[in-house]
């Protein structure tokens, strides 16, 4: 190794075809230069990345995350508003339904009350007429019945007159009829 290095150190022209070069990573005389430039480069790289590039990059990512979060929040708020509107609609719908039912109930009750009144009036009217008719019938009947005696008497006296040739005394006929009736 050491010999290889000395060989290389004395060989001036680099890149020669079969040149016996040392093993470059172990050539310690290049270390200082590499370390110097690595330090400079890395410090500059670190500074630029941490001050400029990474804040920008994480800013973009953070910005997007915030935007998505706020969009999601907006969507959630809109959804809850829509749900509120939905419940309000359902509430007003059910209220309207109850009102409609109450109105229908009321109307029905009113109508049935009216028809009840009409029916009762009609019934009363009919009852009255019925009673009148019954009274007429019974009066006619009793009147007719009162005529039955006279008809019987006349008939009886007419029959007797035909049979006997002379009219019977009305008192006798009356007595006989009363006897039969009893």
């Amino acid at each position, binding site marked *: 190794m050491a010999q290889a290095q000395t060989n290389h150190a004395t060989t001036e022209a680099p*890149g020669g075809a079969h040149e016996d070069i040392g093993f*470059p990573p172990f050539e310690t005389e290049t270390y200082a230069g590499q*370390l110097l430039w*690595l330090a400079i480069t890395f410090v500059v790289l670190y500074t630029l*990345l941490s001050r400029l*590039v990474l804040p920008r*990059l994480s800013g973009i990512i953070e910005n997007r995350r915030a935007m998505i979060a706020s969009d999601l929040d907006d969507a959630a708020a809109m959804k809850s508003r829509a749900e509120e509107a939905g419940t309000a609609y359902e509430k007003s719908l059910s209220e309207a339904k109850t009102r409609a039912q109450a109105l229908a109930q009321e109307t029905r009750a009113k109508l049935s009350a009216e028809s009840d009144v009409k029916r009762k009036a009609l019934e009363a009217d009919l009852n009255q007429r019925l009673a009148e008719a019954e009274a007429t019938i019974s009066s006619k009947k009793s009147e007719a019945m009162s005529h039955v005696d006279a008809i019987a008497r006349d008939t009886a006296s007419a029959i007797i007159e035909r049979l006997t040739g002379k009219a019977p005394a009305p008192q006798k006929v009356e007595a006989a009829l009363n006897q039969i009736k009893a």
Partner: protein
Amino acid sequence: MASPIEQFQIKPLIPVINFTNSSAFMIGAAAVIVGGLLYATRKRAVVPGRSQSVAEVLHDFVANTLVDATGKEGMKFFPLVFSLFMFVLTANLLGMIPGFFTVTSHIIVTFALAMLVIGTVVVYGFVKHGTHFLGLFVPSGVPGWLLPFIVVIELISFLSRPISLSLRLFANMLAGHIALKVFAGFVVSLLAAGGALTILAPLPLLMAVALMALEFLVAALQAYVFTVLTCIYLNDALHPGH
């Protein structure tokens, strides 16, 4: 034919300030990272385009890796971890371009990055937790007679971290590029050999193509592994209790 390790040679560009090809590619990687990310995020679009999506995926990927390993409080190290990941990833991938120098194929670079991680862990651990940070080496619930051994083992394991962290990345990049170069070299040698051997030349070419794909995987994977281990070590600084 050039040696397979010639590609790792450090060539001075401006010797006065020790500016070499390695320095140029370090700056190139940093420029690609900063320029690329600034370009990708130039619109700051809420609905990202393709390049901005890539930037956001990189950001979220590193952030998730860090939070998974250390919890929310680890995010204070996010710029460091992100810089390390992007630097290693970009340096690895830039090195995949033929003719380009691979910054991470030099042990001193990977070791410096690993020492940056371990240094951060040690400094932050002591500043934040004081001597309690040493509890890292003393697991609770260990019988007294076993404790000295455990402490020694924990200490060795802690001290070997920067070595394993840097060697893993360095060795992967180095070996991958050497293997690529060797197989590519076979193609040239076989073509030059003439006769029946020339017919065999496409075989190492196919191998080189396959290796290229594998090396892209390794380039990304090693950047990820470096980042994950960094996060795990940072977790020790944040939560030293076992």
